[in-house]
């Protein structure tokens, strides 16, 4: 028994940074997910010329916490004819997969759970490939037609768009030359460029595929409210429903982190190699001081005592982080500076992920929903061939620049132009094909009508 205790102690001593990161991720990601929901409601309100949530806290800042409390005390229903075991298991799987895949995401220089695995990015992609299972099992276990249709649509969609996402990731990985997440970021630092500028087609295809993978509008047909009630989540309520919901938003953070790490420079600040932009280093400090001051100024005006206390707590956290930034930024005192490096990286990383997710919201409130056949045609006829051609084009560009000594940008522009040309041809061919198909369907239906008339 004593030796077991010693083993555990030794384990904690060796791995305490990783354990701390894991605890931080599991504790903070649901909070971030809640605030993404708030931001989404605010953005939606802004685009529709409304105010959005305003009641709980200043500008609705405490709304996610109120929502979380409400969800926890809601009644938890299990339909009589549902499969009890799988009904319980599916949302847990969904949430676990989303949180586990965050294990290899690098939020900052040391801010990562699995630092040494050399499959890095493949781990994130591979674990999140289990996501469809949670959806499919939940939809099936509910024993409800809407749920099962939603689950089937979702699986078909995820399986189709995972291929595109995989090829898009490969086109970025070719530049980095490694799968290790921190090494990918370092490679962009060494190459003095974000890979989005070297592989723009790869980034755009990844963006589209990642929207489809998170089941968001305009690809939200698995939970299309106007057709399927809520798709695979129809029978879920209370805490189980919130697990699904959290899983979905955590998944958005995961796909955002993959995109940011691979194409947008990970935790690096914008233009890390330009010396006269050094004042950007002060931005995180200013941000935290400003939000702390805002919280203090509004704390006294809150009507409820709990809200006041929460605002004071948020202000205290902001000031503490700002203090760490101010103390540790200029002086390299070891433990504090290390914390600073991690938090500083996490600030830029989460800022970029936020921008990525903002694009998701923007598209959601701008575009109407795809029909199922349109979705499949876009995936299989346009995106997958385009992503494949792009992988070849990136390979050719690398061969031209490193083998033949051509200018990197010239090679990039040439191959990207070629890829875009192929894309346009694909779209043109597809339009013609679709027109022909609908014409033949029309002809067929008129024939049927004629036969009935005769």
């Amino acid at each position, binding site marked *: 028994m004593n*030796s*077991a205790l010693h*083993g555990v102690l030794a*384990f904690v001593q060796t791995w305490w940074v990783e354990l701390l990161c894991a605890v931080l991720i599991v504790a903070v990601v649901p909070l971030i997910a809640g605030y993404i929901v708030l931001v989404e409601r605010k953005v939606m309100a802004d685009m529709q010329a409304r105010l959005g949530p305003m009641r709980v806290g200043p500008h609705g800042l405490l709304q996610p916490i109120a929502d979380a409390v409400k969800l926890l005390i809601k009644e938890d229903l299990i339909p009589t004819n549902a*499969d009890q*075991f*799988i009904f319980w*298991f599916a949302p847990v799987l969904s949430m676990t997969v989303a949180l586990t895949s965050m294990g290899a995401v690098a939020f900052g220089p040391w801010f990562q759970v699995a630092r*040494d*695995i*050399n*499959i890095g990015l*493949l*781990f994130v*992609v*591979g*674990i999140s*490939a*289990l996501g*469809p*299972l949670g959806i*499919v*099992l939940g*939809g*099936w*276990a509910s024993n409800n037609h809407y749920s*099962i249709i939603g*689950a*089937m649509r979702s*699986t078909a969609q995820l*399986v189709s768009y*995972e291929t595109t996402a995989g090829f898009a990731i490969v086109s970025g990985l070719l530049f980095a030359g490694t*799968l290790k997440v921190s090494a990918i970021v370092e490679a962009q630092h060494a190459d003095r460029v974000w890979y989005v500028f070297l592989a723009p087609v790869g980034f755009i295809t990844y963006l589209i595929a990642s929207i489809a993978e998170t089941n968001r509008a305009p690809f939200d047909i698995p939970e299309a409210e106007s057709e399927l009630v809520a798709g695979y989540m129809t029978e879920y309520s209370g805490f189980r429903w919130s697990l699904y919901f959290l899983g979905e938003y955590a998944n958005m953070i995961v796909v955002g982190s993959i995109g940011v790490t691979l194409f947008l420079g990970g935790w690096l600040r914008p233009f890390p190699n330009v010396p006269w932009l050094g004042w950007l280093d002060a931005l995180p400090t200013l941000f935290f001081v400003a939000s702390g001051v805002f919280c203090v100024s509004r704390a006294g005006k809150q009507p409820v005592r709990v809200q006041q206390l929460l605002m004071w707590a948020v202000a205290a956290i902001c000031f503490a982080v700002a203090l760490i930034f101010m103390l540790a930024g200029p002086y390299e005192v070891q433990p504090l500076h290390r914390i600073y490096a991690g938090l500083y990286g996490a600030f830029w990383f989460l800022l970029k992920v936020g921008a990525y997710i903002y694009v998701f919201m923007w598209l959601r409130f701008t575009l109407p929903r795809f029909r199922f056949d349109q979705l499949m045609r876009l995936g299989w006829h346009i995106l997958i061939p385009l992503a494949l051609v792009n992988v070849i084009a990136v390979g050719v560009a690398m061969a031209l620049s490193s083998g033949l000594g051509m200018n990197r940008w010239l090679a990039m522009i040439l191959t990207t132009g070629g890829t875009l040309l192929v894309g346009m041809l694909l779209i043109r061919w597809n339009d013609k094909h679709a027109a022909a198909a609908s014409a033949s369907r029309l002809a067929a239906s008129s024939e049927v009508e004629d036969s009935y008339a005769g």
Partner: protein
Amino acid sequence: MLDSVIFYFFAGVAVISAALMITRSNAIHSAVFLITTLLATAGIFLQLRAEFLFIAQIILYVGGIMVLFVFVIMLVRLDVPLPRIRSPWGKLVAVFVAAAVAGEAGFILWLARKIPGQGLLAPLPAPSAKLAPNTEEFAKGLFGAYLLPFEIASVLLLVAMVGAVVMAKKRTDTP
């Protein structure tokens, strides 16, 4: 110590859920236990520092094949119980196969009893030092030394895929 605990955890989960998989009458439950078995096996790969094999197992078997399995099972009516096949020969064959497998496993363990660290209850500790990055080694082997077999296998898979598409395509009588 910790290595043994982790190994026996994964091994136990794999064996128990494999047993549960073949005894459940509900096909979806069987699929869930098969997924658990595959994940536990992937965990053992990871403990042996075979990282690429671990993630390939998860992406291909759990994320790809099992999702399709579940997808197909969902479309089958499960509320109609399957007719149970009872024949005296089935049991006899089953007993024979089980005895053969148990005998084989016992024989291997008996052979391995002399090798240090390979006995029944003490598996070799996983290599503690960092190995060469085995994803890179894997790629070098696949695209260097074994390029021709790799290409032949991929052409074979492509042919199978095209064949499946052709066979599944709806036949129209009109030319």
